[in-house]
């Protein structure tokens, strides 16, 4: 019977484990804010980051020439204004005066040059050097003016400046720490670095911050808590004041709470399934259309995201600059899907493999798709890939012939806030892995031409025309199964204000305040 008792205890533990409360280990003072996020910060050198979470952490301390407001509208930050020539090859930036870095160094044209030159130097092997690639030279004109010259015209360059990869590090810190800059971040931002361990970053108020009256809190802590239930428990216990992402299926739990607000906002995520257009059966546009008709996007939203989001009605999400609506989303029509499959020579469907990430919510999405495809006779094997495996199987494939991707469930948000970065990395003929992320191996000459046209001019009307055309073609060619743009959902203590989730999933913390 002892054995039985032990077994019962085991079952109880198994069933109850997600509920295990997280006990508070610290008592936080009034001016301290804790944010709970879902993954670890991997670094703090802005030029060497490609995940939203680390960029969010970096944004608390380091700022760029441009940045975003809470609606992801681009705003000047360390720049006052910029003059561009008509060809979009020369950008003269007038800098804001009287700003100092956390370590006491002065912010000026020389600092911009040192920071940019370090980031784009190929010898430094920084992950974001590709965003700097258009730059030919950075020249100091005078103390507060810097001229950036490009190799070729690039209309969206100012948007690149707003990307966190262009945040400016202190020249003193660059000289002092070299490769270890990511361990000793020093910028011009509202908060300055205190400490960073694997799952916890702590920053404190920068007293000489250039915006008067900010920041309003003493310290800010970012803690990673991957388990959804624990993250929510942290908020409920008052151990955190803000959590993101808030799991959509648990919104109901806190909706009526007197102390917690759920904040849902439109995102610029496009969630889709890339179909490898170089591999049968997806070489046939009728098959790709059939997949689009086979999936009920509203049911998808309901099941996977508890209804938070909208179906995609263009390759770009509706919140992104340059979006152009392509009529209604592909309607749910399994009969039509079956007819199209039959027409394409697959009256009994076919078998294929669906790849995607291994988070709970991603797996739920893939299971849903599996059920929907089964209804039109397409048997899909769902394979959740751990990120290392995904890198090997999807991202590091050398040639399109080697790629074994069939269907790839993924999502993208363009952190420059501009159409170029929403479409070029994913649908440009020269953006196959391992260079960029075109996992549908889509290559349409007209779309390529449009992307290049949009890239090489700063003329807003011409760029709009080019991206409209590209979106219309992509929508018709259907290299993707267009799914949804799901909302960003966060939850916060009612006492907290001033923390915003940007549509791309990064966060602004400058105005954080506790009442």
């Amino acid at each position, binding site marked *: 019977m002892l054995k039985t008792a032990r077994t*019962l205890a085991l079952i109880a533990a198994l069933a109850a484990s*997600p509920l295990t409360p997280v006990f508070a280990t610290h008592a936080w003072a009034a001016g301290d804010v804790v944010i709970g996020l879902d993954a670890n910060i991997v670094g703090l050198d802005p030029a060497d980051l490609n995940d939203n979470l680390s960029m969010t952490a970096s944004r608390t301390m380091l700022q760029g020439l441009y940045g975003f407001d809470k609606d992801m509208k681009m705003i000047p930050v360390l720049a006052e204004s910029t003059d561009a020539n008509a060809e979009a090859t020369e950008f003269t930036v007038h800098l804001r005066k009287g700003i100092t870095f956390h370590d006491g160094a002065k912010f000026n044209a020389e600092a911009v040059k040192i920071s940019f030159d370090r980031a784009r130097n190929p010898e430094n092997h920084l992950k974001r050097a590709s965003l700097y690639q258009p730059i030919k030279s950075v020249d100091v004109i005078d103390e507060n003016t810097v001229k950036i010259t490009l190799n070729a015209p690039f209309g969206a360059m100012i948007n690149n400046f707003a990307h966190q990869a262009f945040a400016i590090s202190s020249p003193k810190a660059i000289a002092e720490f070299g490769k270890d800059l990511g361990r000793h971040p020093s910028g011009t931002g509202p908060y300055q670095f205190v400490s960073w361990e694997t799952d916890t970053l702590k920053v404190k108020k920068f007293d000489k911050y250039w915006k008067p009256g900010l920041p309003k809190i003493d310290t800010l802590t970012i803690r990673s808590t991957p388990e*959804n239930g624990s993250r929510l428990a942290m908020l409920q216990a008052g151990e955190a004041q803000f959590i993101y992402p808030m799991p959509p299926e648990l919104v*109901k739990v806190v909706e009526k709470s007197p102390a917690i607000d759920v904040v849902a906002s439109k995102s610029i995520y496009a969630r889709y399934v890339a179909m490898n257009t170089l591999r049968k059966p997806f070489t046939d546009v009728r098959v790709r259309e059939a997949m689009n008709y086979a999936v*009920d996007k509203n049911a998808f939203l309901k099941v996977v995201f508890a209804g938070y989001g909208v179906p995609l009605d263009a390759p770009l999400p509706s919140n992104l600059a340059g979006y152009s609506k392509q009529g209604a989303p592909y309607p749910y029509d399994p009969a039509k899907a079956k007819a199209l499959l039959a027409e394409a020579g697959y009256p009994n469907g076919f078998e294929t493999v669906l790849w995607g990430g291994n988070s*709970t919510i991603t797996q*739920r999405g893939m299971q849903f798709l599996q059920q929907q495809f089964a209804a039109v006779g397409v048997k899909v094997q769902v394979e959740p890939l751990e990120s290392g495996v995904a890198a090997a199987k999807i991202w590091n494939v050398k040639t399109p012939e080697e790629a074994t991707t069939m269907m790839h469930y993924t999502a993208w948000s363009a952190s420059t806030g501009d159409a170029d970065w929403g479409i070029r990395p994913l649908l440009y003929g020269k953006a196959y892995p391992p260079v960029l992320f075109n996992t549908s191996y889509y290559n349409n000459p007209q779309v390529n031409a449009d992307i290049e046209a949009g890239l090489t001019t700063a003329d807003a009307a011409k760029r709009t025309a080019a991206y409209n055309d590209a979106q219309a073609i992509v929508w018709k060619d259907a290299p993707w199964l267009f799914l949804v743009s799901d909302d960003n959902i966060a939850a916060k203590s009612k006492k907290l204000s001033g923390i915003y989730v940007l549509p791309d999933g990064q966060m602004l913390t400058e105005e954080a305040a506790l009442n």
Partner: protein
Amino acid sequence: MSATLPEPAVATTIRTPIGEFWRRFRRQRVALIAGLIILLIILAAVFAPFVAPFEPATPDYDNILEGSSALHWLGTDAYGRDVLSRIIWGGRVSLMVGFLSVALGAGVGVAIGLISGFFGGWVDGVLMRLMDVLLAFPGIILAIGVVALLGPGIDNVIYAIAVFSVPVFSRLVRGSTLALKQTLYVQAARSIGVKAPLLMLRHILPGAMPGVIVYASLRLGTSILTAASLSFIGLGARPPSAEWGAMLSDGRSYLGVADHLTIFPGLAIFVIVLAFNLFGDGLRDALDQKLR
């Protein structure tokens, strides 16, 4: 005169082994009830297509995450699938994993134990050190290791659990074999020239069986629980399979919103593991020579 003699006592008390077992076992009330529950679950699983009110894999997106109702007795899951039907179908997977893994583990373990105990010497030494190695790992860790080697999937879970059942069975049988080897009837059989294989199978194995049966029934519960644990951490059954551990894992995201998604599969695991353990306890009391 003979008519007045009492009936020879011997004539009424000689019972077949089965009869003797049943006489002792039916006194174990709790074990009897447990056995009945197991029988019911087995019947439900075998006749799942007739018993289950709905198809286990058919979604209904208009009725997701619903609580108990007259239509869906145990509610519906995130895809609108009927939880009761899934538990009934899932019973097939859990029972199959339980029985197959224990049968496989017991088969191999008994063979190793017999050979080890019968031959002794270096054979015994090598085999038992090998079993010591397996015993040194905590069961679930060993199973995770085996699944990691073979790859996830319900078939491999069966092998994994079988592997960690082997050493205990072999130890058990080796012990009985060592004792039985010295008994008079085995010595007698040996002296008239019965060959080793026959000696092991005809004369020693039946004597070792009660222990094996008891342990197997206890092991069934553990195996089902281990299989559920492996599925819970994503190493076992694949969607859309309705394995109980996988259901528990799926439902875990909805704790606080749709608790029935974890409570009912959890309860199913609880009941069957408890039933097998109580049944095993009863069997032991009925079969154990030392308790007679």
